[in-house]
């Protein structure tokens, strides 16, 4: 063969190969590029969903309330699907096309999470207005099989119920029409005559039958199912620990150091919530020693009533609060001052634009109320002065509130942590039995487990570690690690369940499964409220697109991150001519050494809406500008506040963080943290009170005594008065005398509050050794009281026995 021939042959063989290879590689490149653009689109849609969530929580007063939060999340998930559809080149009307490719959306919030996932739901029969139709509603008729129903739209032409008798003919038995013209009769149910078998269906919602779309059924198993994306119920980050009869408690964790505990420890049932603080973060002296005698609630009241309190932290920073009135009165003053500013500003604008004021006296009142002498020639300047002075006063008062909030955070945190360490030191990781209500067992089989909860680690025995001058619970502590494992396990289980259920429901070519997420990603999800979106099975060039995106929120109302707390000089708070900063910004200074702190969300979504003010319906109360170095840019020469920096800045940090955390609304919080123990129940132990309280008197907040009816033979004796006492101990109560109404059928509950200042040194239990028996002594001479079971005479001894006989329950309430 000639050389030319060889060349041609070579070209014939190699050229197609090269062409095919290059085409294939180009397709691969395009696929990867497409995948990258899908990644970006998924991420952008997730971010949009998060922005919707942030804006809605910021602008909705009740956003932290669970029902309201649910609607916000519903809206956010809609935004996600719509944006994704738009990003993928479809109109958002095509969202039903894209929905099947989203096997789930995960919203991790402060103390729990939501999963938005497709679920097979029965198709509910609805009327023209979209309302569910039930058996008994106008237009519903039962079929001859007495198992299914028919539905025709009810006409309002039927004048009376008699006319509807016509319906009960023709082989099927009809439910009588209600008189549709009369609103009072609308929806009036009448029974199906002669057919007992179906009359029990009354009021039940009707579903479209899976066998015949024109028939309806009340049996959910016979209903036609369709796929619908629904927001599943809220799952708290909770775990249950149990060890025989020693303890059985449920703990709800949060993204930070706040926990809620409910359950029994020994005989006492506790409901408590609070911040876990490293117990060595403060110096145990002075006011704190005194406040620790109180319950969390009482200590909070002590702080908020304005008591002067000093707290020294581990690094020597001294925090003070109180001395300027109560929290409530200061808050009211701020409201008054804000109204004054609004009015002054309103009148100032009105005068400037030459509007006619209906009542000039109102202007005068605004000025004189602010303590100025009204000057008709100088009204505008005076109104300006009112605004300036009021602003300055608001800032002063706000700082007082901040100090109180911060003190509440530390004081209640310390009391709570001491209780936790005292009571729950027996709780070890291996006693975990449930996670988010789901039974948990460590299976040592082939199944890959994220974490085995089988160690002896005491979860709640936390100690602080001082890093860079700040004493805090270390990130790698048993508490945090355990908490993350619990939350991760819970989310993994439920997300996996949601996705595999969806996978089983679908019959398409794609299969849906939960991807394995890396530890770093979990860390991100569990540090701030986040959204994790999944897109699976979507066609993407040569392959199928499967990916997920995580977006975390740093500007929201439901969590506080210490890094996103901003500070401003107290004197310049909400002043347009000054800037707010981060704590370590060198530009953050204050002549007074006092700073007001707020979260990034407050600055970003700063707007207070007042619908009653038509001229100035929006007010902004964080008017400072963002610092160009620390807030806008974020990369600056930092001022090392810790460990040896400016003491006033350290103080500002502690107040700021404490205040922001304390003011956070917690959905799962227990309003009044306390413990209960029933030591006497007449029904179960009629013989009398023989059990003593499990814990010493110093830990008791109050004793609740429920008293049954005490009658009197003398009808004039309508009130019975008793003095309460504890054996031969000195008076330990806040009140000694209690009154009861006689001859009433209802049970009376007497709450005997113990004075923490008097009980602090009492280490014995009630009823212990007989010397501390609880007794009630009648105060009336010759009382005629008696009970049905015990009729004593009128001597005091006998009358005391009458009271004792009337006792039904005795419950100890612990701090």
């Amino acid at each position, binding site marked *: 063969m000639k050389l030319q021939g060889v060349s041609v042959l070579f070209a014939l063989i190699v050229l197609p190969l090269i062409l095919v290879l290059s085409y294939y590689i180009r397709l691969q490149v395009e696929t990867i590029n497409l995948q990258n653009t899908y990644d970006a689109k998924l991420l952008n849609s997730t971010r949009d969903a998060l922005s919707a969530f942030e804006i809605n929580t910021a602008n909705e007063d009740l956003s932290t309330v669970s029902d309201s939060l649910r609607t916000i999340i519903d809206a956010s998930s809609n935004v996600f699907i719509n944006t994704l559809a738009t990003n993928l080149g479809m109109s958002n009307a095509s969202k039903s096309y894209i929905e099947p490719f989203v096997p789930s959306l995960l919203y991790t919030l402060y103390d729990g999470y939501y999963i938005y996932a497709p679920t097979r739901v029965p198709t509910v029969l609805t009327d023209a207005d979209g309302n569910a139709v039930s058996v008994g509603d106008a237009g519903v008729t039962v079929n001859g099989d007495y198992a299914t129903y028919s539905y025709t739209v009810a006409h309002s032409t039927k004048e009376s119920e008699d006319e509807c008798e016509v319906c009960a003919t023709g082989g099927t038995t009809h439910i009588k029409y209600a008189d549709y013209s009369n609103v009072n009769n609308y929806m009036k149910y009448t029974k199906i005559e002669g057919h007992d078998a179906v009359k029990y269906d009354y009021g039940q919602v009707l579903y479209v039958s899976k066998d015949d779309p024109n028939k309806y059924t009340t049996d959910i198993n016979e209903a036609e199912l369709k796929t619908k994306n629904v927001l599943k119920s809220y799952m708290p980050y909770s775990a249950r620990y149990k060890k025989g009869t020693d303890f059985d408690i449920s703990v709800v964790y949060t993204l930070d150091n706040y926990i809620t505990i409910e359950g029994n420890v020994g005989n006492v049932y506790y409901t408590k919530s609070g911040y876990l603080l490293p117990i060595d973060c403060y110096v145990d002296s002075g006011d704190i020693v005194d406040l620790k005698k109180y319950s969390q609630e009482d200590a909070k009241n002590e702080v908020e009533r304005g008591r002067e309190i000093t707290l020294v932290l581990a690094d020597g920073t001294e925090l003070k609060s109180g001395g300027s009135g109560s929290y409530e009165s200061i808050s009211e003053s701020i409201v008054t001052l804000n109204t004054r500013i609004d009015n002054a500003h309103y009148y100032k604008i009105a005068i400037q634009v030459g509007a006619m004021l209906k009542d000039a006296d109102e202007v005068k009142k605004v000025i004189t109320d602010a303590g100025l002498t009204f000057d008709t020639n100088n009204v505008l300047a005076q109104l300006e002065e009112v605004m300036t002075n009021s602003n300055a006063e608001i800032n002063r008062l706000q700082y007082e509130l901040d100090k109180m909030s911060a003190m509440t955070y530390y004081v209640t945190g310390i009391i709570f942590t001491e209780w936790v360490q005292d009571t729950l030191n027996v709780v070890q990781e291996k006693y975990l039995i449930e996670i988010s209500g789901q039974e948990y067992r460590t299976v040592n089989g082939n199944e890959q487990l994220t974490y085995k909860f089988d160690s002896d680690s005491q979860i709640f025995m936390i100690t602080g570690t001082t890093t860079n001058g700040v004493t805090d619970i270390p990130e790698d502590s048993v508490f945090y690690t355990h908490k993350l494992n619990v939350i991760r396990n819970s989310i993994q289980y439920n997300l996996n369940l949601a996705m595999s259920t969806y996978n089983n429901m679908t019959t398409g070519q794609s299969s849906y499964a939960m991807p394995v997420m890396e530890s770093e990603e979990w860390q991100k999800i569990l540090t701030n409220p986040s959204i994790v979106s999944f897109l699976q099975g979507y066609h993407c060039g040569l392959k199928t697109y499967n990916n997920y995106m995580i977006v975390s929120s740093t500007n929201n109302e439901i969590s506080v991150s210490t890094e996103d707390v901003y500070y401003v000089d107290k004197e310049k708070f909400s002043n347009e001519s000054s800037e707010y900063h981060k704590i370590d910004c060198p530009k953050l200074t204050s002549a007074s050494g006092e700073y007001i702190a707020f979260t990034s969300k407050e600055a970003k979504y700063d707007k207070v809406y007042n619908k009653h003010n038509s001229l100035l319906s*929006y007010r902004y109360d964080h008017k400072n500008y963002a610092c160009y170095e620390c807030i806008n840019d974020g990369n600056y020469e930092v001022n090392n506040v810790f460990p040896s920096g400016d003491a006033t800045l350290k103080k500002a940090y502690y107040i700021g963080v404490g205040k922001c955390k304390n003011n956070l609304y917690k959905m799962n919080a227990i309003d009044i943290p306390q413990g209960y123990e029933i030591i006497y129940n007449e029904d179960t132990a009629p013989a009398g009170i023989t059990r003593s309280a499990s814990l010493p008197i110093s830990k008791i907040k109050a004793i609740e005594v429920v008293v049954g009816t005490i009658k009197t033979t003398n009808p004039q004796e309508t009130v019975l008065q008793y003095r309460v006492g504890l054996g031969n101990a000195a008076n330990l109560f806040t009140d000694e005398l209690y009154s009861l109404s006689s001859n009433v059928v209802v049970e009376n509950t007497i709450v005997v509050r113990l004075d923490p200042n008097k009980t602090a040194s009492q280490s014995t239990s009630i009823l212990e050794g007989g010397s501390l028996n609880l007794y009630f002594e009648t105060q009336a001479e010759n009382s005629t009281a008696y009970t049905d079971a015990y009729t004593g005479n009128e001597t005091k001894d006998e009358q005391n026995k009458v009271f004792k006989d009337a006792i039904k329950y005795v419950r100890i309430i612990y701090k």
Partner: protein
Amino acid sequence: MSDTLITIVAILLATVLMFIFPLLSVSERSDDISQLSVQTATAEFVDNSRTIGKITMDNYTKLVTTIAATGNSYDVEMEVKVLDENIGKKSAWTQGTVIGENVYYSVYTSQIVEVLEDKDNKYNSNGVYKMKEGDIFSVSVKNTNKTLSQTIRGVFYSISGSDVYTIAAQSSGVVTANGSY
């Protein structure tokens, strides 16, 4: 005489067909694969940085190492468009219907790398350049050397200009979280 000429032409053609064309084709595919790798690494770097709200030295090094593994040298250009929050901020007492405008100012590679390296320990950055929610981060990567395919092509025809590249990747997006150390 004419046979000899045809033979020489045939040898030349055969050389082009049997050696240069396959080499050119293979080197171009190699560039395609490099392009693929660079594009993926860039997108990953940008998406990762904007979801965590920070550019880290680790991620930056990872990007540089990954693209260097393709055997070419690259110019990596980064740009952060910093959102000026104050322009969007509604000043006091204005009507609520006014929606803030977004204004950005840009920070470029050298400034970002200066913070990442933090040679004078000025920023205490620990190899982190922080961004905030709303900023825009973009990265553009281009090869600076001549790849084999470019060299071979250069034999036949030359493309003038200094900014000639065959491997280029770009990625950008809005930052979704406030960065922290």
